[in-house]
């Protein structure tokens, strides 16, 4: 018999191709929104502050500062069919896996160091 965890993985709905996200990435997430019987795409742009879970249950959280300086965080299931596309806009140099410290900051101090060119 095959390995049980491989077997369960073969049943779970995992997307074939998914961008390799890292915390600190600035991303544009295109989500499918159903309104009545109309469907449209919505874009949410912000910084990935957390990734969590494994397999089909993996999720990531994007934080952006909306109008009037109000922080908005949305958590997306990475493999959800409602997440149409994830574009990585830019990457940043970060030294921790969870960027919760951004929540307490605003303006200039809430910026991250841009990633330098890597060979």
């Amino acid at each position, binding site marked *: 018999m095959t390995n*049980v*965890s491989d*077997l*369960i*993985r073969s*049943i*779970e*709905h995992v997307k074939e191709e998914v961008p390799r996200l890292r915390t600190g990435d600035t991303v544009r997430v295109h989500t*499918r929104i159903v309104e009545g019987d109309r469907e449209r795409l919505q874009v949410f742009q912000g910084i990935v502050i957390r990734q969590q879970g494994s*397999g*089909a*249950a993996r999720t990531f959280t994007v934080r952006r500062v909306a109008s009037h300086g109000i922080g908005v965080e949305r958590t997306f*299931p990475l*493999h*959800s*069919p*409602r997440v149409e596309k994830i574009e990585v806009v830019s990457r940043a140099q970060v030294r921790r896996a969870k960027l919760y410290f951004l929540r307490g900051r605003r303006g200039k101090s809430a910026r991250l160091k841009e990633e330098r060119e890597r060979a």
Partner: protein
Amino acid sequence: MRGILGKKLGMGQIFNEKGEAVPVTVIQAGPCYVTQVRTPERDGYAAIQLGFEEVKPSRLTKPQRVHLSKRNVPALRYLREIRAGDIDQYQEGQKIDVSIFQVGTFVDVTGRSKGRGFAGVVKRHRFGGGPKTHGQSDRWRAPGAISAGSTPGRVFKGLRMAGRMGNERVTVQNLEVVMVDPARNLLVVKGAVPGARNELLIIREARKTTVSKKRR
């Protein structure tokens, strides 16, 4: 009565057609053999005895081996009976696999729950426990008063107290069948099922729900 024996393999997550995440349990279901048919005339009740999981014949006792070889069935580790009114549909030696279940129907799953050992009243009976603060000590998970004073002057029978929890037969009803894979003998069911991995499960068609609950 459709039924099959199986083994809990583990849990995972899939997305339904609406894009919602659904927790699922993967069950190794069958193949099973009908090892005996119980008839009201001979046994006083109607049931089928199912056997599951092939083993080396040397793992069984001689009476078990003879019981199975008489029905031309391989050596099987588990034998369990399922009450069935429609016993004339089954013959001894018949093979049963997951294809008896359809996606979208509902099943009841029976197994043995995980043993929790000697558990307190908060875990075992979902008591609230006592206050943590305001000068309290040793009261967080205490059961509180167990009875009044001189009247009645005793503790009522059946009062919920700490004790052994789990490791008992539990049936979860009305689990939706999400996937059936006869090639790999897999049954995928929405929600959780009693017991740890590798637990023996009895899967029967749901007693209370027969049609799909899905609206739309």
